[in-house]
């Protein structure tokens, strides 16, 4: 049922090349899920988030210090290896320092026609962030217009925001099914569904979501649910890891990752000024830890998800050296534990050694359940 999403996820470059052959636009690589894709799409381009490949690599050593996170190095490796040779533009919505390094190194060492550093504010908790960000978006729009030689109208932006909202609403519908006692969708399927939405035209993604939803609602799961788990933390599109977790007596029923729910959780509210509306959507998003200071708005959001999806335990995941999430890990663990959700902390690398991870996950499942042993 999810084969199209898997195909898009695994053959993202084939999709992008095919899109280029059929459209009079360019593919724009987005670093970080805070990228306001609506502007890129309304400019007639295909926004495509750059993710890693989960393969060991040795090309980033001259560019990024080894103590930067494996994700940012994996991302840069894709550019240095020429995997995105069709991609003419790149942009970053100001993110953590690690990913900024990937962006600037890419700009310096991988040929592109267009690049833009968007000053997405880290201090989203101040009211000034709204007007500031809307102003920065105007600069981004101007820059895109100049590059593409075409106007990005308010109407086009409104239409795009509606298309994106529809995508968010449809993915919410799928996520809602995960609240069922035995969800008809595995965590791995959900992960690939969201991750593939980074790569393809939202029109295609929406069409596929609409196609599978009725089928999904009547789908009888062919597996036991087991322990209901939540995964929370750094960027995570490690399908092999989640496959392993779901092979040892558990189902991942919800997440708080920028590659998961955080990407689509809130929608654009239309209040008249479309640039401000789009800016507000990103300011109000479930925050990444880089932007969740000094109030921690993220914690109650994570707790609410854990409660709504009735999880038995939470796996907190940190990409090695991921400073923003590292800072959150201890208080988040304490917060979840004090609300009666057991947690397991795991550290990720470009490739996750499944054996050592498996014993930790299995032992965690034995803590969460297995009363029959006593």
């Amino acid at each position, binding site marked *: 049922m999810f084969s199209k999403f898997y195909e898009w996820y695994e053959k993202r470059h084939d999709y992008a090349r095919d899109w280029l052959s059929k459209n009079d636009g360019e593919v724009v690589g987005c670093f970080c899920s805070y990228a306001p894709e609506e502007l890129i799409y309304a400019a007639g381009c295909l926004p495509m988030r750059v993710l890693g490949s989960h393969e060991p690599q040795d090309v980033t050593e001259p560019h990024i210090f080894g103590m930067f996170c494996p994700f940012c190095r994996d991302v840069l490796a894709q550019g240095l290896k020429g995997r995105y040779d069709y991609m003419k533009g790149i942009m970053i919505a100001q993110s953590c320092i690690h990913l900024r390094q990937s962006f600037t190194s890419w700009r310096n060492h991988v040929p592109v026609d267009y690049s833009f550093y968007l000053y997405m504010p880290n201090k989203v908790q101040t009211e000034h962030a709204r007007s500031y960000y809307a102003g920065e978006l105007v600069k981004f729009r101007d820059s895109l217009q100049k590059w593409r030689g075409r106007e990005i109208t308010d109407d086009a932006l409104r239409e795009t925001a509606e298309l994106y909202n529809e995508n968010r609403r449809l993915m919410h519908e799928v996520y809602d099914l995960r609240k069922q006692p035995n969800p008809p969708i595995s965590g791995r399927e959900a992960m690939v569904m969201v991750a593939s939405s980074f790569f393809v035209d939202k029109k295609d993604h929406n069409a596929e979501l609409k196609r599978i939803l009725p089928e999904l609602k009547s789908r009888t799961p062919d597996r036991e649910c087991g322990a209901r788990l939540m995964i929370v933390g750094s960027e995570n599109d490690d399908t092999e890891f989640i496959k392993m977790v779901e092979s040892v007596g558990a189902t991942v029923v919800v997440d708080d990752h920028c590659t998961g729910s955080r990407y689509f959780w809130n929608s654009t509210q239309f209040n008249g000024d479309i640039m401000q509306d789009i800016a507000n959507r990103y300011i109000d998003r479930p925050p990444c830890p880089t932007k969740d200071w000094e109030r921690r708005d993220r914690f109650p959001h994570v707790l609410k998800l854990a409660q709504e999806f009735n999880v038995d335990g939470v796996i907190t995941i940190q990409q090695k050296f991921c400073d923003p999430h590292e800072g959150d890990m201890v208080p988040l663990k304490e917060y979840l534990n004090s609300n009666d959700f057991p947690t397991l902390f795991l*550290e990720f690398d470009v490739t996750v050694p499944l*054996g*050592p991870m498996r*014993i*930790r996950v*299995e*032992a965690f499942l*034995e*803590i969460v359940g*297995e009363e*029959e*042993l*006593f």
Partner: protein
Amino acid sequence: MAEEKKEFWRWKEYNWHDETKDWKSAETITAGVDVGSVSSQAVIMLDGELYAYSNMRTGSDSPDSSRKAMDWALEGTGLTLEGIHFIVGTGYGRVNVPFANRAITEIACHARGGNMMYGNTVRTILDMGGQDCKAILCDERGKVSNFLMNDKCAAGTGRGMEVFADLLAVPIEDVGELSLDVEEEPPPVSSTCVVFAKSEATSLLRDGWSKKRVLAAYCLAMASRVVGLLERIGVQKDFAITGGIAKNTGVVTRLERELGLKALQSKYDTQIAGALGAALFAKALVEKKRKQAV
């Protein structure tokens, strides 16, 4: 003439069974097989009491190691594999025990085994194994409530100690005692990497350090590293150590000193904790199965 090559790391393998017990009169016979990264143990229990066990080196083939350990534990008892009602496999090779009825992690098994070995007051168990180290918190039933494992390197594990025994040509069983025979405690060697620690030790020997002093520095490094793990999880009393390193007084003494806490002692062999816990789980599972069948 070249000096005979000795394997100083090679610890003694053994088996044992309780000749005062008769398995024929037991209602429930269960077994646990712990295929670890360095050593494998098989434990056989009669109605929840220890009857027989073996402890040997793990080979390159996990199913084969589990079979050998089991056969050796059965040796001389007249009992056969078929006579055992339920078998639980544990350890890193837990899914490769072909004759096991179920696999359970060594984390759960060490907590359960430790509960029997040290009594139900034990709340923190430190399993110092062949290639990893686990700090485990458990309740009065021996059920795990939290755990932490070391990452990345064998420093602070049995394999690291074997490397040092070989480097210094000291039989591994003597390492602990010798390391305590120093006038003054030296600073520890690197605790993050066995290879770094080994090269550091080589240069210390070159600087004129005695073997005992180098061993003291390594045992201290190992103890400090493990204390870090324990402090991260938060040690609760009572505290006990399982696994092979529990037999090394050089590490244990330093660990207790750094921690300011004495580890409980047990009449059982600390290396069988995982297999013992597995056999106890096997008993619980077979009894539940019988109840359900009624």
